[in-house]
């Protein structure tokens, strides 16, 4: 396994509003002032669409990146969404949780590893790779 995920379960306790500013690009005005407020967006709503069905995870890998996701990135994962082909998903197998790319090939579901290997969902008669959720947002810090 080239990477692992630190799973974080969230519970909302308060919501936050973020004023949205509109910038005129060509004018290149400095930091926006109150007059420029275009509206308010809720950062919680922006980042988390389905709070009750969402958890966070931190991506950990010493050596690899996964589709541009690198060590320490914070992932927001929605367990209520059905993935479509090409989406990044969190997959559980035994005690491991990893990222995979969801693939549909000729109507059959596959999970693609970072090295391009395709895994079928059912890998042994009784053991199934568990689809835990779809990664909706990635937060990378500099």
């Amino acid at each position, binding site marked *: 396994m080239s990477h*692992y*995920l*630190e*799973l*974080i*379960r*969230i*519970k*909302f*306790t*308060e*919501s*936050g*509003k*973020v*004023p*949205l*500013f*509109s*910038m005129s*690009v*060509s*004018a*290149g005005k*400095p*930091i*926006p002032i109150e007059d*420029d407020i*275009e509206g308010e*967006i809720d*950062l*919680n709503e922006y*980042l988390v669409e389905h709070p009750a069905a969402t*958890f*966070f995870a931190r991506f*950990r890998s010493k050596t690899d990146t996964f589709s*541009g996701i*690198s060590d320490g990135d*914070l992932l927001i994962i*929605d367990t209520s*969404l059905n993935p479509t082909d090409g*989406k*990044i998903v969190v997959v*559980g197998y*035994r*005690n*491991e*949780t990893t990222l995979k790319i969801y693939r549909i090939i000729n109507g059959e579901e596959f999970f693609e590893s970072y090295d391009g290997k395709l895994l079928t969902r059912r890998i042994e008669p009784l053991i199934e790779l568990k689809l*835990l959720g*779809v*990664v*909706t*947002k*990635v*937060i*990378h*810090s*500099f």
Partner: protein
Amino acid sequence: MRAKKKGKIKKKYYYEAELFPASIPLSPANYEPELIQIDLTNILAPIPKNIYLVKVNGESMIEENIFDGDILIVDKNEKPKDGSIVIAALNGELTVKTFRIIDEKAYLFSANQRFLPIEIGELMQFEIQGVVKHVIKNLV
């Protein structure tokens, strides 16, 4: 690259969260998760009044993994260091660049080799408007 929209974070909010160590499944029967409180504002905007958001428009920073449509969280009070990713107002246009100091001269680099570095000249209208701290990508 152009920066389109800005937002400012005002209010603090909290997530109460259970932190699972690595490789523990979501519903472990015999595992007591540590209850922690995650404050997203602390992670993304420790001093909310210093923070604003910018939506990226353009592809001049793709080698820094910043893409069209990403949201940048910018600290307007942080002083840029050599290598910082900054929002710069340059000749009347907002841009996202890498700030470099080489032989005491300031440059703005694009993280895309198709764009040439810009040396900051005395006659240029130029202002650093903040250091990019986080980038948020939408995957769905």
